[in-house]
């Protein structure tokens, strides 16, 4: 059972799916295809960033639900480090909420391909937490 509303249109357009979970956070997978390719044979950095973003959002949704919160989130910024070229393989990503406060959350997301311990990219995001207004 996926503890998150249906993946957003952007994630569906890139054929992302939640395939597993690690330490309670959803693992999101994205297949290689022309639509996510940058230079020939390699993933586009923006598509890798997209996978990191969806994994981060999935992790923070899960963490908020675990607290019984229905707050919405708003992204403030993101830094992405690209460590290895993304090849013609399935790519996975998982987010870790390193701190969930009342007003903001810090999330780290990691993307990998064949070896989970060899990340191809890391994303570091800050989100504002906003209580849902009535009506």
């Amino acid at each position: 059972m996926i503890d998150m509303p249906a993946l957003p249109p952007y994630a569906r357009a890139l054929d992302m799916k939640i395939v597993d979970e690690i330490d309670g956070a959803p693992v999101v997978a994205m297949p290689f295809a022309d639509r996510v390719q940058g230079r020939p044979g390699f993933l586009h950095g923006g598509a890798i960033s997209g996978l990191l973003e969806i994994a981060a959002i999935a992790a923070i949704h899960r963490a908020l639900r675990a607290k019984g919160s229905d707050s919405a989130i708003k992204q403030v910024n993101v830094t992405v480090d690209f460590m290895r070229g993304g090849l013609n393989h399935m790519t996975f990503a998982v987010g870790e909420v390193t701190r969930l406060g009342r007003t903001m959350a810090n999330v780290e997301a990691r993307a990998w391909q064949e070896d989970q311990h060899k990340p191809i990219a890391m994303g570091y995001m800050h989100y504002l937490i906003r209580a849902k207004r009535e009506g």
Partner: protein
Amino acid sequence: MAFGKPDLGSITPQGSSFDPALVNKMMGKFGHGGFLNMEYVGHGGDWVELAIDWREDLVADPETGILASAVIISLMDNATSMSIWTKLGEFRPQVTMDLRIDYLRPSPSGERVYGRGICYHLTNSIGFVRGFAHNGNPDEPLAHASGTFIRIGDRVA
């Protein structure tokens, strides 16, 4: 040269000027740039501006219609990457080392997003870039970007 089939070699030869409009015309047809339908808007000596039209399938939050953050990242990645080649006057193989985006405000649903990438310093190995995204008025940016690219190939330091 057959119309519609530009030869990449003729627009990125060593020592001659780099044409971001023509390069984007190709990059914008295939791969992720094609998926996002990235369009060339303009360029100067050290900058390139590209744009992406709002589209329902690029949305991260269906309630608000706000684009996925990564759409802006892709836009700034391509615009800043091309700003390096534009400043250099030629193509050189490179990859993004890191990229940071600060979102000053969301890009409204339905609005076209412009991304201007600027190369403010170049070394033999590294291109230092910054840039910003806006909805048509550069004086009202929606995001700021900064990052670095590293040259790859035979002369990486």
